[in-house]
């Protein structure tokens, strides 16, 4: 079950990163995607990544203006997921 959850989380993270990397989203759609990401990350304990998603949500900017933040978010998510994977392996 833990592995299934991890896989599901991993897929959702990939999906939402792809959404935020889509340069055509307006400010509202970007905020909505960031909001969803924020909630999911916080539920799974990826607090730092969740904070970055909150910043993106609150910035109220379209996707073509947040590339740097999305990059930070992606790195934070990867780091968080590695930690989760490590815990699962042990």
């Amino acid at each position: 079950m833990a592995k299934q959850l991890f896989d599901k989380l991993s897929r959702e993270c990939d999906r939402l990163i792809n959404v935020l990397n889509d340069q055509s989203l307006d400010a509202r759609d970007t905020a909505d995607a960031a909001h969803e990401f924020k909630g999911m990350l916080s539920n799974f304990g990826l607090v730092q990544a969740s904070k970055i998603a909150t910043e993106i949500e609150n910035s109220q900017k379209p996707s073509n203006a947040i590339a740097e933040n999305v990059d930070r978010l992606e790195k934070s998510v990867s780091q968080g997921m590695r930690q989760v994977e490590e815990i699962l392996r042990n």
Partner: protein
Amino acid sequence: MKIVIIDDNAANAMLVETWVQQIDNAVTVSFNDSAEGLAWCEANDPDLILLDQMMPKLNGIEFLKKFRALDTESTIPIVMITANADRQTLYKALEAGATDFLSKPFDPTELLARTRNLLRLRENHLELKDTIGRLHYLATTDTLTETSNRAHFFDRLTEEIDRTRRTGKPLSLAVMDADRFKLINDTFGHGAGDAVLKSLADTTKDVLRNHDIIGRLGGEEFAICMPETTLEEGIHVCDRLRSTIAENRVEMEGRTLKVTVSIGVSQFDPDSDTADSLLNRADFLLYRAKDSGRNRVVGVNDNKMSEFPIVAS
């Protein structure tokens, strides 16, 4: 207990489901599409819904409004789980019908505690509803024959009389009595008597139309309210009933009993009748049927008490 989880984020939905599956006797159903979740909830009987707020197409508040419009008793608990921490979202959710509210990131212990509490309330409500249903049944039903008891029959007769006065459509009443019932009881015992009454009631329900109302007045006497029915039509229905009963046999501990009934029928006169006067007249006609040989139907038009053609056995 059926717990429905609705969250467009598959990982969130799975996480919530993983936690609530720890609850004893819980069966979980999960949806990532809120419209599909709503359709399922409308068609089935969920015991609790755990609902995300921000969802495409149909968000949590919209879901609540649509679902509560159908769930008129609003007894199914719905917990909104959202990352929206502002009070406005909370107020909107509660006004739309949310029972409780959890913020993301949710504390699993809190999620389980709130869910268990709400499920306990739901169980109590269902038990209460069941008890009320049974009490209503006992208060209105003659349990031997599964027909209306006297009091409930009178209530329904009164309702039909009111409807007749409003619409101008006819109403007829019949009173039916098992012939030589005392002899059956004395010869074969009260068990046989009960079997006969049950058989009469079952046959009557089979023969009568869907909108007719049958009640047991007491002993071996039944009343039949026939809305939108003239005297002629009522006599026809009752004679069909009489002949069906006469042809039937009641099987009782290796014995086969033949039973007949006598029936008095009268039509309601809106200018002069009350429920009591209508019943008294039908009762009088029943005894005319008994006196003139039993196993027959006697009907009289309005209050004149002049005998209508007797339908012989």
